Structure formats: structure tokens, C-alpha cells
């Protein structure tokens, strides 16, 4: 019963091997001492074991107390918190430049079928980049830098995907 309990504690421990050996040896010694004391008080050996284990606590609860506390999330202040916006901004700027170039082409050459298609897709590209850039900005303003990085990655992946789709459409 004690061996099984120790195996359970061991399965939940998230500490290095040396500390793990020490913890398990200490708990094992504690349980044997407790069983001995309960038997001396007139309790049957099996019940003494059950009681000793209950007094130590559930394996998961015991193991959890040995795990190092997760470090607090770093608070990033100043311009560095805006770094996730760099990539979406470049992608969005590309979309705006492409749209502007198509508009210039439209003014110079009139509305041809090719210009119409190019303009439609460049506007779509810019809209997707803009929407995702906006959500990245919101995430940064809310202080969730990790979420902001995820949004930035979505901008890149989303717009790259759109470019691939458009390249086949043409």
C-alpha cells in the first residue's frame, strides 16, 4: 500500500532526480513511523497504513507542494511592448502600397478586366491585414503580449495564405 502511494506521489512530482529521491525517502520514512505509532495505539496494521497515508495527504496535493511556483508573468513596458506590431505593420503597408499602385494604374490606363481583378484582391488583402493588425494592437493595449504575438503570427499566416490563393486565382 505504501509502495503504491509512493509511486503515485512520484508520478506527480516535477522536481529533479536528487530532490525526488530525497522527498520519496522522507515520506516513506514518515509513513513507516506513523504506521508504527498507530499500531502501538492498538490500530490494526492495514488500518494503520490507511490512516498514515490519509494523514500525509493525496499524492497529487503532496507532490504539488514541492513543485516550484511558476514565475510571474513579466510586465513589459515602453516601446518594447509594441514589438509584435512590427510584422503586421509591414504586411499591411505592403497591402496599402499594392492597392495604391493599382489605383495609379487604374487612373493611367482606365478600368480594364485585369486592373479590376488586381484591385479587388489587393483591397481584400489589405482588409485582412488591417483587421488582423487591429486585433494585434488591441491585444497589446490589453497588456497581453503573448496574445499579441499570436495575432501577429496570424497576420503573417493569413496574408501569406491569401497571397498564395491569389497567385493561383490569377
Amino acid at each position: 500500500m505504501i509502495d503504491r502511494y509512493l509511486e503515485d506521489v512520484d508520478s506527480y512530482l516535477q522536481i529533479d532526480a536528487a530532490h525526488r529521491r530525497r522527498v520519496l525517502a522522507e515520506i516513506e520514512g514518515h509513513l513507516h513511523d506513523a504506521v508504527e505509532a498507530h499500531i502501538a495505539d492498538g490500530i490494526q496494521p492495514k488500518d494503520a497504513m490507511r490512516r498514515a497515508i490519509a494523514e500525509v495527504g493525496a499524492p497529487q496535493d503532496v507532490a504539488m507542494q514541492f513543485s516550484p511556483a511558476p514565475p510571474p508573468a513579466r510586465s513589459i513596458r515602453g516601446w518594447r511592448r509594441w514589438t509584435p506590431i512590427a510584422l503586421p505593420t509591414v504586411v499591411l503597408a505592403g497591402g496599402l502600397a499594392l492597392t495604391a499602385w493599382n489605383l495609379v494604374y487604374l487612373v493611367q490606363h482606365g478600368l480594364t478586366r485585369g486592373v479590376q481583378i488586381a484591385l479587388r484582391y489587393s483591397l481584400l488583402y489589405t482588409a485582412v491585414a488591417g483587421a488582423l493588425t487591429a486585433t494585434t494592437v488591441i491585444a497589446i493595449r490589453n497588456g497581453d503580449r503573448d496574445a499579441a504575438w499570436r495575432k501577429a503570427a496570424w497576420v503573417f499566416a493569413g496574408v501569406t495564405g491569401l497571397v498564395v490563393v491569389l497567385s493561383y486565382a490569377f
Partner: protein
Amino acid sequence: MEAEYVRGHLGTMILAVLAAGPAHGYGIGAELKRRSEEQLEVLEGSLYPALHRLEEAGWVDSKWETQEGRRRRSYSLTADGKDELLERAAKWTAFQAFMSSLLEAAGA
């Protein structure tokens, strides 16, 4: 004695028990139970993490010993641990005086 009260003061309780002399984990738990007249509600599994934290802080020292054919980790108070215990005792006394005056004023 409510577990909530115990949790925040377990380290101080352990230091106080060790002030009387070295002891192993089971012995510390048994002594705490005895001194609280079996009123103490502390899961014994909490003792070891607390002991390890006290050791990391340098307030407690430990070594393996063999007693009656069984290996046990014996804990003792360091000089820094004695200072820490005195400091905690002073803070506790001040807090106790404050709480007593507050409750007395409330007629409780």
C-alpha cells in the same frame, strides 16, 4: 484549529519546535499535534515542503541519520534560523496585541 490559520504559520511552528533541538519530519508533526492537544489540522505532507523551503532559506539544516535501523532526515535550527524565529516571534507578539485590542474594543 483551522487549516487556514496553520498554513500561513507552519514555517514558524516548525522553527519553534526545532528550537528545542533537532528532530525528523514525523517527530516535528507529532510534537505539533501534542502541543496543540491534537487540535492541529495539518496534513503531514505539508511538513516536508515547508522544511525544504526553510532549508533553502538557510534557517534549517538537515542530514540523514540511521536510528533503529531506519534512515531518517534530521532537521536542526541554524544560527540564522534562531534569529528568524526571534524576529517572527516579535512580529507575532505585536500582531497578537493589535488583534486583542481590536477585538476587545469591539466587545468580542
